[in-house]
């Protein structure tokens, strides 16, 4: 509600209308991944390795195949053998193939080894028990530091890429180092240097909708796939490669998506369902259960980090150094590079050095999770800054303001910043009543900043006008949090027609050009930019028709409030011509009118946020309560402020879960111990206070309306802000997440 009193040049942008898909979603009509049926449909189920690391000696599927209800059984042999293994992320198709169906080895507990399609879900599940797999169990490792140790079992030789220095364990597959200045000289200038080590556990994106799809691949080589995904073109491209098909022969339709947060930016069951369908020659539906989601889809990376920061008595940071080791499962891809590049990004540093490692272990392949890599780095960096502030008796917001990056600052990752809004978020934090509110005994307050790059990506949008003057907008980015509403607002703004007259559809891969995934906080930025430009393209054509009718040059016509009007007194004296008056006979004045945009926008604009948290620790039980929470973040321009607030609130609460409760717990046997929501506890309503939000708007010059992505930055500060609040409340520094009650009790005990 922070924007209500602000003046705006916009008519639609910045308002809060009902979302176009609201009715479907409150009545149960909206069709999600598991809600589709097809004639003759079979049900698929996947057999998974119970071992963390094992050679697959033999798979005998004959008993399952002999069952009357079973129509197909597949193993790795049913996929393309043309996908090459390459080091690092170069061989990503191979990594994905190996992840969706194991080859020679099972690499983690839950790794798929075979699949069946049967006439019912129960029959498919029963049939899995008839598949006999002979394993040779191998030594395993699940911890990041242990996976880097000289005696660690090697998960796969040759997975490391060019970047890894000689002498490192083969499980270290990528290495990143960057920075500038001379950190040793910087530390020598400091009045106080603090160096600490931090650990965070892997957490799951925790979307409520498990992965689900319905695949149909006939013997004509043409396929149809319905699935819940953040990006159906990447699904199309990946599945086609894994099955050895032509991309265009596979049409992928995105269902409504029940949350993704990065976890649905790749494929898991989709190629399996297609392979089953191809073999059975019938449609096959595959739906994961929750345990499969935890065991076999992307959690985020776990991390082990060392951060060293030097500060002068006045709060100036003289040097900063961070070593960030990220474990990303049995495949390359842990975003150690992103952790390194984001950790110190909020600050204007003369001397900075950051190192990131991508380390493999016997765990599921990590997938992106909201600003992937950034939250853990911010936890370590912002904790050390908090310690320095405490020891030097300095205000944590003042210190951050003193060192904050602004336009022209050389970023820790290299280039100079354009117009950014970190200082504005810090000033808003300092002025917020939350920051001045008194704390009760036993409570502590924490502050932290966070940074994320944001992304543009390939984008196609089409806008078609109807004869009655309404508009159909086709976008290719699945709506994960109300984006249809912001697209319609932006189109309404340009066209000057009512928001309600614009129908927004998430088009399938056969009816629109390529679109990158709904990730990287890119949807409102890139699909929004594309929508604005497609609408402007349509407006140009509308102006041409008006010019032709009036018999004046097209440059003498402009568009205002949904009407073509003469651009000035010399252009002629004509009444405004509304959009519907032009479209009503468009078929006979030149043909249908549509607008298009196909390009890769490259002006996403980075984003910053500052969070304020109050926490209360019960010294008897070690339980933490978050008593007050305020998110302050730069949105550039909030198109639909309610959904911007929603992104801030959701990001903060996922951060609360990560900080306090959530973790992947592995037993000595390398098996995941907590693969249901009862044991992997995400925040529930009774855990939380209201989450206050402040939308700061420092326009992004790379977007026509100033939009910066808002989806990801909100999860970057919480781990640190909560850790700082808890540490200040408990009087002992918490350097390991989650700060679960036993861990807090142990820390309190160690502290005497």
């Amino acid at each position: 509600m922070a924007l209500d009193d602000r003046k705006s040049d916009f008519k639609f942008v910045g308002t809060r209308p009902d979302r176009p898909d609201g009715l479907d979603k409150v009545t149960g009509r909206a069709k999600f991944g598991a809600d589709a049926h097809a004639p003759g449909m079979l049900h698929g189920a996947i057999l998974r390795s119970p071992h963390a690391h094992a050679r697959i000696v033999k798979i005998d599927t004959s008993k399952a195949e002999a069952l009357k209800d079973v129509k197909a059984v597949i193993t790795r042999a049913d996929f393309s053998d043309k996908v090459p293994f390459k080091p690092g992320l170069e061989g990503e198709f191979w990594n994905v193939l190996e992840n969706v169906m194991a080859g020679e080895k099972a690499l983690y507990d839950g790794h798929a080894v075979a699949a069946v399609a049967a006439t019912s879900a129960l029959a498919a599940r029963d049939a899995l028990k008839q598949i006999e797999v002979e394993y040779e169990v191998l030594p395993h490792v699940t911890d990041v530091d242990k996976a880097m140790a000289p005696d660690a079992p090697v998960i796969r030789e040759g997975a490391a890429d060019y970047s890894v220095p000689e002498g490192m364990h083969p499980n270290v597959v990528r290495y990143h180092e960057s920075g500038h200045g001379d950190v040793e000289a910087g530390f020598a200038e400091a009045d106080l240097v603090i160096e600490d080590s931090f650990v965070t556990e892997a957490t799951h994106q925790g979307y409520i909708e498990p992965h689900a799809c319905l695949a149909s691949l006939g013997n004509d080589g043409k396929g149809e796939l319905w699935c819940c995904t953040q990006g159906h073109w990447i699904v199309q491209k990946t599945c086609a490669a894994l099955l050895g098909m032509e991309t265009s022969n596979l049409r992928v339709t995105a269902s409504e998506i029940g949350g993704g947060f990065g976890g649905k930016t790749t494929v898991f069951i989709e190629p399996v369902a297609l392979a089953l369908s191809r073999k059975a020659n019938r449609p096959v539906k595959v739906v994961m259960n929750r345990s499969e989601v935890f065991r076999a889809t992307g959690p985020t990376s776990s991390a082990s980090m060392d951060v060293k920061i030097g500060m002068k008595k006045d709060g100036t940071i003289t040097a900063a150094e961070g070593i960030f080791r990220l474990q990303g499962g049995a495949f390359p891809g842990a975003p150690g590079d992103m952790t390194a590049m984001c950790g110190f990004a909020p600050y204007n540093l003369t001397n900075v050095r950051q190192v990131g490692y991508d380390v493999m272990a016997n765990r599921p392949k990590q997938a992106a999770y909201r600003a992937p890599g950034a939250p853990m780095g911010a936890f370590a960096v912002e904790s050390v800054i908090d310690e320095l502030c405490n020891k030097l008796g300095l205000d944590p917001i003042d210190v951050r303001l003193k060192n904050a990056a602004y336009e022209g600052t050389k970023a820790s990752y290299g280039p100079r910043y354009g117009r950014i809004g970190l200082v504005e978020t810090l000033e808003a934090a300092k002025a917020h009543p939350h920051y001045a509110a008194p704390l009760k005994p036993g409570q502590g307050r924490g502050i932290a900043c966070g940074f994320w790059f944001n992304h543009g990506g390939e984008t196609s949008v089409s806008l078609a006008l109807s004869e009655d003057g309404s508009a159909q907008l086709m976008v290719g980015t699945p709506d994960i949090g109300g984006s249809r509403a912001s697209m319609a607002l932006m189109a309404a703004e340009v066209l000057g027609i009512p928001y309600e007259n614009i129908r927004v559809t998430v088009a399938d891969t056969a009816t629109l050009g390529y679109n990158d995934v709904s990730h990287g906080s890119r949807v409102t930025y890139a699909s929004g930019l594309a929508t604005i430009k497609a609408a402007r393209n349509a407006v140009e054509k509308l102006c041409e028709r008006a010019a032709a009718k009036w018999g004046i040059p097209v440059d003498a016509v402009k568009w205002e409030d949904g009407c073509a009007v003469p651009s000035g007194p010399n252009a002629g004296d004509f009444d405004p011509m509304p959009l519907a008056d032009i479209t009503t006979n468009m078929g006979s004045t030149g043909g249908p009118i549509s607008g298009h945009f196909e390009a890769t926008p490259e002006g996403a604009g980075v984003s910053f946020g500052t969070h304020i948290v109050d926490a209360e620790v019960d010294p008897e039980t070690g339980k933490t309560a978050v008593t007050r929470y305020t998110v302050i973040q730069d949105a550039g321009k909030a198109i639909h402020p309610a959904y911007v607030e929603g992104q801030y609130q959701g990001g903060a609460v996922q951060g609360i879960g990560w900080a306090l409760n959530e973790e992947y717990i592995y037993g000595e046997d390398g098996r995941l111990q907590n693969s249901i929501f009862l044991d992997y506890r995400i925040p529930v309503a009774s855990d939380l206070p209201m989450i206050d939000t402040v939308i700061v708007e420092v326009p992004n010059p790379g977007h026509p309306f100033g939009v910066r992505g808002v989806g990801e930055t909100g999860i970057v500060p919480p781990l640190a802000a909560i850790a700082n609040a808890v540490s200040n409340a408990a009087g002992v520094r918490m350097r390991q997440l989650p700060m679960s009650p036993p861990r807090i009790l142990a820390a309190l005990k160690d502290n005497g």
Partner: protein
Amino acid sequence: MSKIHVSTTVNGDTVEYLCDPRETLLDCLRDRLNLTGAKEGCGTGDCGACSVTVDGRLVCSCLMLGAEAEGGQIETVEGMADGEELHPLQKKFIEYAALQCGVCTPGVLVAAKALLEKNPDPTEEETRYWLAGNLCRCTGYDKIIRAVMDTAAEMREAS
């Protein structure tokens, strides 16, 4: 395995289905009756996405067998609106942007309706504890709680 014949009432309509003894009420609603509003988020009664009421009692339909529904009165999200007229909670959820992805929404709405029928004037704390069995990963619950509290206030005024 032979199937069980079940005759029950869903959203006021008499329905019949044949189910495997192992199938849950949720399976039967979704796969036998094509009522896919209730979702399976966990299958273990932890997420509440499958919430329905049976004889007025809020249950996780993934924890109840389809065969147990014999003779029951089941209400699902599909029966929440009165014809064209949305339930006040449904309207308020749209107005408040109390949903993002929307997959938990059917369960949250059914649970919230059950709360307001039992307690028309819940405190924020009561609302938060009542809805603690409904996981939402998108919203942080803020707008959900506000929407339920405000609906309760409006319904009290209207009655």
